[in-house]
């Protein structure tokens, strides 16, 4: 298991790169709601960064702490850390979260709140973006017991992205043992048919690359490779056949502006800088 620190430079960590790349998705000023994972804080940092630099109309959702728009400048332990509450504007209750999840985004609604770069991870992700938080092996005496599925089921009601901090063949599998969060299901129209026309995930964000999904089959496709890695690295560490376009760009690396904003306004204690993600 090799560390995914940026080869040849200590300029930024891969966790910082992931946060910055995610933040770029929330630009545009459109009113939107975006949160972050319970664990680790990369999407949380990303959305706070986006709010401060490109989208003041983003509502930062930290469900585990139960608030919107906490004004932290040092990174909380996760969305559940009560310090997310500093300067918050409103309580958000789990009942509200569940109502939002069971309702989901109605494509026909007049008022659509686009979800920013929130995401779900999992112990397995497959080629159609299905996520497994349940476990591996025959149920119920699983060989590997996952932590439970919490709200991964909300992947079925809205187009949530997938965030994977450790890119390897144990996580990226051809078919998940169990589906706890529905991606594009079995590809093609399967998801639209089962889930009332709701779209599946748009992107998969990993420690070494970004993937999207093909338009018709909805199979996972390589979109860019992070600096320091190659297409071959991605292929070698992915347990299924990724769709590889003819040209795969290198992910635009973090700029000085981005790193400065992240380190002085969002993650002053350098949590992400010290974090080591893995590949393989």
């Amino acid at each position, binding site marked *: 298991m090799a560390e995914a620190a940026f080869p040849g430079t200590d300029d930024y960590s891969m966790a910082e790169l992931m946060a*910055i*790349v*995610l*933040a*770029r*998705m929330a*630009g*545009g*000023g459109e*009113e939107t*709601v975006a949160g972050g994972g319970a664990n680790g804080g990369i999407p949380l940092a990303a959305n706070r*960064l*986006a709010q401060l*630099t*490109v*989208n*003041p*109309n983003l*509502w930062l959702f930290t469900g585990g702490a139960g*608030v*919107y728009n906490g*004004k932290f400048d040092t990174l909380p332990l996760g969305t559940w850390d009560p310090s997310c*509450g500093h*300067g*918050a*504007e*409103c*309580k*958000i209750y789990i009942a*509200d979260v*569940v*109502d*939002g999840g*069971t*309702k*989901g985004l*109605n494509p026909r*609604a*007049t*008022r659509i*709140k686009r979800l920013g770069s929130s995401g779900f991870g999992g112990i397995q992700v497959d080629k159609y973006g299905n996520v497994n938080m349940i476990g591996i092996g025959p149920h119920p005496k699983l060989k590997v017991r996952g932590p439970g599925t919490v709200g991964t089921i909300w992947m079925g009601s809205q187009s949530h992205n997938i965030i994977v901090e450790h890119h390897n063949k144990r996580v990226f599998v051809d078919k998940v043992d169990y589906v706890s969060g529905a991606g594009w299901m079995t590809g093609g129209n399967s998801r639209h048919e089962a889930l009332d026309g709701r779209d599946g995930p748009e*992107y998969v964000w990993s420690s070494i690359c*970004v993937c*999207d999904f093909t338009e018709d089959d909805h199979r996972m496709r390589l*979109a*860019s490779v992070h600096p320091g890695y190659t297409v071959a690295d991605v292929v070698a560490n992915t347990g299924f056949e990724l769709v590889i376009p003819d040209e795969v*760009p290198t*992910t*635009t690396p*973090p*700029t000085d*502006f*981005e790193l400065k*904003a992240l380190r002085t306004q969002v993650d002053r204690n350098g949590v992400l800088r010290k974090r080591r993600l893995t590949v393989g």
Partner: protein
Amino acid sequence: MPGNQQKHKFMTPLEYQAPADLKRRSKLISLEEAGKIIASKQIVSLAGSHSADAAMSLIRAAIRAGAKDMTLIPPITTSMAADLPIAAGMLKKLYLSYVGFEIFGMAPAFRKAAQEGTLDIVEADEPFILLGTQAAAGGKPFNAVQYLYDGTDHKTLNPELKKIVDPFTGREVWLIPPLRSDVFIMHAQACDLYGNAQCWGGTGQERDKAKAADIVIVQADEIVGSEVIQKDPSKTTVPGLWVDHVVHAPFGAHPTFSSASYSVDDQHLKLYIDMVREGRAQEYIDKYILGPKDHFEYLELVGGLRRMVDLRTAIAIRS
């Protein structure tokens, strides 16, 4: 890079995406604009409780904007917020739980319309309204209750109730359908420009009603700075995220109470009730709703600053 059109947004650094103005967008609109939005819809939902915390200025604005033939999902209990729209022909259909003026008497326009059959009334009740709203708030197919309706005539009078067999117990249970609305209009004591609304009293129907609506409009007695809201996030009744428009309407709940802020104007309520009872509803509407050119002219007409200060003080010196 800046001139480079990227296929994927994540390839473009933040500094090239920053808007010209990083200012957060205000949701403030005029009362007149709000009235037009409401009048363009079919189903309107209201909060408040009896003669307290009713979104009266938005209702007056909707009537001025020509609102007609709408359906009202009221709060569990209300008075003038349902009666005035009925008097003004704004409503075609009402989900009824309770419409009355408590110690001031029966609701005159409601009673007349009901007895003359000019209003389509769904014989609802407290759980029907609340649980139906909850179902719609979560996009749920229905809400279920046990046995309760068996003892009453609602089961025959309200055709929207359905009975099924509970697959867990084998017993018959009642299903209440979701009650969504096109627009939820609510009164708040304070609200910031981004829609974070504080209600200082009330029965807590606001969150579910907001979630069950396509559009939410808040009328606020006061527009406050973000620093007031951030003092205590637990006091924000409805998150700004769910609010589409904010209207500044000082004393906007008049003639009803605004919780912990100003008292009910019992004289004006009695004047309204008397005029409608005497068949002078149109005269009331012409004078108090259509007459004033804006909210402040309305406030002048009902007593101006002197009366408003009296109503505020009445909260403090009640004895």
